[in-house]
């Protein structure tokens, strides 16, 4: 792996006005490969912006180090780092035309006029704004401003492009369009993108890898599918996608095979290494893996309950069920083409099956 960005043990604390301290980054280590699209995902205040600003040079780390393309930049000021940022509110220069906005980094670097003009033209073309060069930025829509911001930060060919929630100010349709454009653009220019979002769907669609942050710590780092299918802890399971977490206790262990018993008394066999007798674990069940009806396999789990709420979410129905033992259970049910009537209505009895293969074992608590 050709690493373009290497962060080791990054630590950052802020002082609060009342004299306390907030740990915004707590030993964050991360390697980003050339051409990689990495997303920092996490709830508000988890340290995403702080991490991004440490890379761009606007925050000084308290501990740890940052390398860009093999060179240590930990204490280099922002203007000397070969990275560029797309700011959340774009931060375009209102007193300059679009072309001069895009040309800014080249002009500052003293690139000659002809070269600057050519590269600005190419860049505007790439983002679909050819011919807009002489306009003022106030004459642009949100999506167009977004593209100018992208062009401005890509024109000097930075080694890494940092993006802090660049799509959060756009409406949903435009956001989805820009998500695809961004992804295409990234593949075209072949620069590593470090992208910040708190929208898990956005993260899942766009990223090669996702870093889930909470409380200034990396909770999990992996491909979108890994995060979704195999979350390492309760926090990730709850933050990425919808899910049901079932409490269970290990009753017997035989190598990587174990038997777990649920609160309801049901038993099932699970496969997971490093389990111990009497250990409390959680079993994650994604709503789309739940089936209606009685189980055909002895190791499948079976729940009877009453439908409490039904949400139509486009293709599927998201059904909330209160089981007979009093637990809340979520299932997404997809109607078939032959039968478009709702599969369940509030108040009706329902019988649900969770195939054994859909169970994912989580042994770690939420790491805060």
């Amino acid at each position: 792996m050709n690493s373009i960005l290497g962060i080791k043990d990054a630590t950052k604390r802020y002082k609060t006005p009342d004299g306390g301290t907030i740990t915004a980054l707590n030993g964050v280590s991360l390697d980003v490969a050339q051409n990689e699209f990495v997303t920092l995902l996490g709830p508000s205040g988890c340290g995403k912006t702080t991490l991004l600003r440490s890379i761009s040079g606007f925050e000084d780390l308290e501990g740890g180090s940052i390398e860009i393309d093999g060179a240590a930049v930990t204490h280099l000021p922002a203007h000397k780092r070969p990275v560029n940022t797309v700011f959340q509110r774009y931060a375009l220069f209102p007193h300059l035309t679009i072309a001069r906005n895009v040309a800014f980094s080249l002009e500052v670097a003293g690139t000659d006029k002809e070269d600057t003009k050519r590269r600005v033209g190419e860049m505007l073309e790439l983002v679909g704004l050819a011919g807009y060069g002489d306009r003022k930025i106030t004459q642009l829509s949100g999506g167009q401003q977004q593209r100018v911001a992208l062009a401005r930060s890509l024109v000097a060919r930075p080694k890494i492009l940092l993006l802090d929630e660049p799509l959060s100010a756009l409406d949903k349709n435009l956001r989805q369009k820009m998500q695809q454009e961004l992804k295409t653009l990234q593949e075209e220019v072949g620069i590593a993108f470090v992208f910040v979002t708190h929208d898990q769907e956005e993260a899942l669609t766009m990223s090669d890898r996702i870093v889930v942050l909470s409380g200034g710590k990396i909770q999990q780092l992996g491909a979108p599918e890994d995060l979704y299918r195999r979350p390492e802890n309760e926090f990730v399971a709850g933050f990425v996608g919808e899910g049901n977490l079932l409490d269970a206790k290990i009753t017997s262990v035989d190598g990587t095979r174990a038997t777990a018993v649920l609160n309801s008394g049901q038993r099932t066999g699970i496969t997971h290494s490093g389990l111990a007798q009497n250990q409390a674990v959680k079993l994650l069940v994604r709503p789309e893996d739940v089936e209606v009806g009685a189980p055909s396999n002895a190791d499948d789990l079976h729940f009877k309950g009453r439908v409490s709420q039904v949400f139509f979410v486009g293709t599927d129905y998201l059904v909330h069920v209160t089981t007979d033992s009093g637990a809340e259970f979520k299932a997404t049910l997809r109607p078939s083409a032959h039968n478009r009537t709702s599969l369940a209505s509030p108040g009706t009895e329902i019988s649900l099956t969770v195939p054994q293969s859909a169970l994912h074992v989580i042994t770690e608590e939420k790491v805060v």
Partner: protein
Amino acid sequence: MKIKKLLRSSILPIYGYFFFAFVYAPILLIVVFSFNSNPVNMMIWENFTFDWYRAIFGLSAATTESALYLDSTDQLYEAVKNSLTIALTTTAISTVFGTAIALAVARFRFRLKPFYRALMFMPMIMPDILLGIALLIFFVSVGIQLSVVTIIIGHCTFLISYVFIVVSARIADMDDALEEAAADLGANSWVTFRRVTFPMILPGVIGGALLAFIISMDDLVITYFIAGVDSQTLPVFIFGMLRRGIKPEINAIATIMLLFSLIIASVGLYLRSRK
């Protein structure tokens, strides 16, 4: 409902006309009077004339009735020259310092910042007469001869704070992220200032400078205290004329000053509207 409608359709506009009449009628009168040839009672219209303008420019001899002494055209020119010298110098100094302080207060972190900001507001709310006396006592006790220089120093003490306030408002309106964006794109702090910060705050700087110029041109109270015998400014000169009675030449001088102020204000408004 009906009352509301009536209010909106007639009473409010009438109130508006009264307001503007109240503000502008006296000024308009001065302009009209300045062209009235009646030398005894300017309230009674006689004929249209440029005589008073001629008189202040020394083109026609002053009569005994005149507000001007025989040689006072030279004094008037001297006063205008002093006023312009003082206003231009003061504007330059207070614009540079006021802008620099506004930038420092907005951008740097230091102890007692709120206190410092409050200190910058003080000269604006301080009564003129107090400032005038204080400056006079200061100059006298330090042993500086009252002259154009003391007036410049005196004006700077409070005009810096006017510029500071105008420029600070402009800086507060500016998105902090712009300077970060410039740094991010490779600009060091000087280049960031030259290419981003300064162009962004320029309308505020120009606004502050025009304000400083107008206030300096116009100040009477403070200047009166710290002006030396041979360093009269235009307002001080006019005030002196008034003590010998309100004569038609004053209307002409006032009208010229009005025209001058309007031009400066228009330039200011134009620059502001361009953003």
